[in-house]
């Protein structure tokens, strides 16, 4: 079966996120004074063939650990749906 997968890569909690901090400092200039804790990550969309959603998830989690994210500074969240 073909599955649609969304991988959300975000900066690990406790690791400084210069992009997020810069955006956070810019928001008040536009009047958005209530925003805080801005973090910038990335989203990767892909499709995989697997026997089940669980298999697809574990396959992509393996990709995340070895390539798509850097576990030293990033966390990855994998979402799977039937394609």
């Amino acid at each position, binding site marked *: 079966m073909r599955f649609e997968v969304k991988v959300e890569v975000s900066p690990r909690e406790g*690791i*400084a996120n*210069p*992009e997020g901090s*810069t955006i956070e400092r810019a928001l008040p200039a536009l009047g958005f004074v209530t925003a805080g804790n801005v973090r910038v990550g990335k989203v990767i969309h892909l499709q995989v063939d697997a026997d089940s959603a669980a298999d697809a998830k574990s396959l992509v989690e393996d990709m995340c650990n070895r*390539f798509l994210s*850097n576990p*030293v*500074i990033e966390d990855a969240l994998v979402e799977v749906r039937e394609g």
Partner: protein
Amino acid sequence: MSCRVGVVRFPGTNCEFDTVDAIHSLGGEAEVLWHGDSSLKNVDAVVIPGGFAHGDYLRCGAIAKFSPIMESINSFAKEGGPVLGICNGFQVLTEAELLPGALQKNAGMKFLCSMQRIDFVSTSNVLGRHAKAGDRLRIPINHFEGNYVCSPEVLNQLEEENRVVFRYVDNPNGSIADIAGICNAEGNVVGMMPHPERATSPLLGSTDGTTLIQSLLIA
């Protein structure tokens, strides 16, 4: 016999010829090694120079770690061969897990290109043969992602094992503990963000990189 240094070129590398010139000017031999080859051609040392290997897609160094030459560099390093990663080369070495930690975007979100003062903290590595701890060098940086990060455990280990090789005097990029360069436990693999090859002639504004490259040539 002079030392032969292999200078690795990935698609997007742009400092290989500066590095080759610096090595030649100091009496060494240099050979550019293509990332897609797996042979290191019997070189005595390897430099992974600066640039944007594989366009820095996904993360700096993330795709480079899968290039065929990296497997050979990994074995070479494990056997004690001297390996120096400069700038993007440092990023490649962290992604390839030859050095711990990671390099992320500069704290000020600015691309930085400037002369920096750095202190030689530890000389127990392949770059330190002509130096003593505490030497202050002027070497330029040229990067957007030079902000070194690692876990508190790794930082403790680096400090305890005397593996912080260089620290910035005026931290330009937010690196943890002002780190500008580190080495592996054996001291044969060094990664640094400043560019020693660009500090090898008075015309370039500094000759302080000379001792580092000379040290590599006798490593």
